[in-house]
């Protein structure tokens, strides 16, 4: 009995609720990111993209089908149903165990890494972060590098040369860029002195976003040290964002699934829901990456002039509304920032051509690695010699 009383049931129940909420939001976001990808790509190429599928509410007795905005909003649901109903074909020549485990690894690692991201301030006093751990970014880097196993195992177990090439490329690319990814954020931790993502966001809510020190709770003039420190922060932001493109296999670094060279890349031999899991994992990785960029550089859930979930800060007259409303607004602000960053990912994808393999390696090892390393020393120098 003591054991049952000693368990913190509130913590468990709120964690489960938060987990379900994050999963639902992220998976919905994934499917609508795919829709946005197709739509934006089409508009950039002077086409229209999917604009037909609405919601067939006439089936449930309504007078007219519901197809809001530009149309096509039912497309992700139709695609999901299609992928679920397709034949799940396992070729005879694959290594069955690894072939089956690879898609699960691919998506599982990504979804676990979402656990440490603070996606809101507080709601009714509960912090909006599933696991408030003191090693946030390390946790995410660890799990995103586990994600490469999904791809490598898929490529290797498929027993097909195209898949294999895709897997090999992916592993070498991830190794080269993970280094820059980790090194580029060290200046941030030098400045903030913490690896706890919630603390990092709270700091930004109080002192202005790291990338935009002007947004200081409201608008305020930054310190001298903040202005000087903005230079290394900007450098690390650029390197981190570009490395994130490489880490999530997005164009211009999508060598693991270069359709023109590798048929389909590491998922050539996959079909149906197993393919869909890779697809989901890829877009969920984009969302996780964007969330990390937003959390580290763009102030997380904080928005100037808007109070946090406890009703502190922001403009005075906004305090007449109850605090939980602002908690919800903060969550919306966070996912809004992530959505904007995802649109940027899509925009870049349909602008830039793919890098050649040697260019990719050169960029990673010769430029970004060195710049990130120099950036660490630059930050340390500024912190040591310029007074706060």
């Amino acid at each position, binding site marked *: 009995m003591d054991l049952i009383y000693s368990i913190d049931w509130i913590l468990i129940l709120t964690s489960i609720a938060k987990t379900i909420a994050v999963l639902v939001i992220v998976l919905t976001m994934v499917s609508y990111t795919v829709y946005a990808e197709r739509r934006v790509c089409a*508009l*950039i190429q*002077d086409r*229209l993209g999917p604009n037909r599928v609405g919601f067939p509410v006439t089936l449930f007795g309504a007078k007219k089908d519901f197809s809001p905005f530009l149309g096509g909003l039912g497309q992700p649901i139709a695609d999901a149903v299609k992928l679920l109903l397709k034949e799940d074909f396992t070729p005879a020549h694959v290594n069955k165990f690894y072939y089956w485990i690879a898609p699960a690894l691919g998506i599982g690692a990504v979804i676990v890494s979402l656990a440490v991201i603070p996606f809101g301030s507080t709601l009714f006093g509960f912090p909006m972060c599933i696991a408030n751990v003191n090693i946030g970014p390390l946790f995410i880097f660890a799990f995103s590098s586990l994600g490469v196993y999904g791809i490598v195992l898929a490529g290797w177990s498929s027993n097909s040369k195209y898949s294999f090439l895709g897997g090999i490329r992916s592993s070498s690319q991830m190794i080269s860029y993970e280094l820059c990814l980790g090194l580029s954020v060290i200046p941030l931790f030098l400045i903030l002195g913490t690896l706890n993502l919630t603390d990092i966001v709270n700091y930004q809510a109080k002192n202005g976003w790291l990338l935009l020190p002007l947004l200081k709770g409201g608008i305020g003039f930054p310190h001298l040290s903040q202005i000087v420190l903005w230079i290394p922060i900007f450098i690390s932001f650029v390197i981190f964002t570009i490395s994130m493109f490489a880490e999530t296999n997005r164009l211009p670094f999508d060598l693991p699934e270069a359709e023109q060279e590798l048929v389909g890349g590491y998922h050539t031999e996959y079909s149906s829901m197993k393919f869909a899991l890779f697809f989901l994992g890829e877009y969920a990785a984009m969302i996780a990456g964007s969330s990390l960029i937003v959390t580290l550089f763009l102030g997380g859930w904080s928005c100037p002039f808007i109070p946090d979930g406890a009703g502190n800060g922001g403009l005075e007259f906004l305090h007449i509304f109850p605090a939980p409303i602002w908690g919800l607004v903060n969550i919306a602000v966070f996912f809004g920032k992530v959505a904007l960053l995802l649109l940027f990912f899509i925009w870049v994808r349909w*602008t*830039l051509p793919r890098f050649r393999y040697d260019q990719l390696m050169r960029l990673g090892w010769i430029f970004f690695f060195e710049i990130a390393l120099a950036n660490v020393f630059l930050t340390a120098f500024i912190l040591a010699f310029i007074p706060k």
Partner: protein
Amino acid sequence: MAYTVTRPKLTIWEKMYLPQVVGGLIITLRHFKNMITGKTRVVMQYPEEKWDTSMPPYYRGAPALVKDEKGRERCVACQMCEFICPPRAIRIHPGELPAESKWSKVEKFPQAFDIDMTRCIYCGMCEEVCPEQAIFLRKDYAITGFSRDQMVHDKKKLYEIGGTLEGLVFKWNPLK
């Protein structure tokens, strides 16, 4: 033969790459904006919008049989179109006109006239070769069906598509 590709000489600005990336992003953003604001109009929304009005007069659509102004069929079942048809889409079963008929000089008429639209390549050779100007390519292009049988146009269907065409017909000319 191996040959050396001369690489373009890049300025420092271009070698820095990032400014060029921003330039590319601006180009795609412009396309996106023009598409959103409706400045570029390239795509035609097919079932709602069709290009029928701007179709050229020489457009070759589905082949069809025509009748003359008195509602008599022009085809004499000479089978020229059947023989010329490159994919052999046309099948004609000629019938003999009875000797006591007023038009017995014509000798034949088509008992059945089938065009298999899954085979037809819309080349227009049947129209070109027809001595009686009985078969024409119409402007219908959306020929669909749920089965192969539905895609075979029989005589009735062909006259339905074709309608009537006025003008000289040798077949119904008693002087010829």
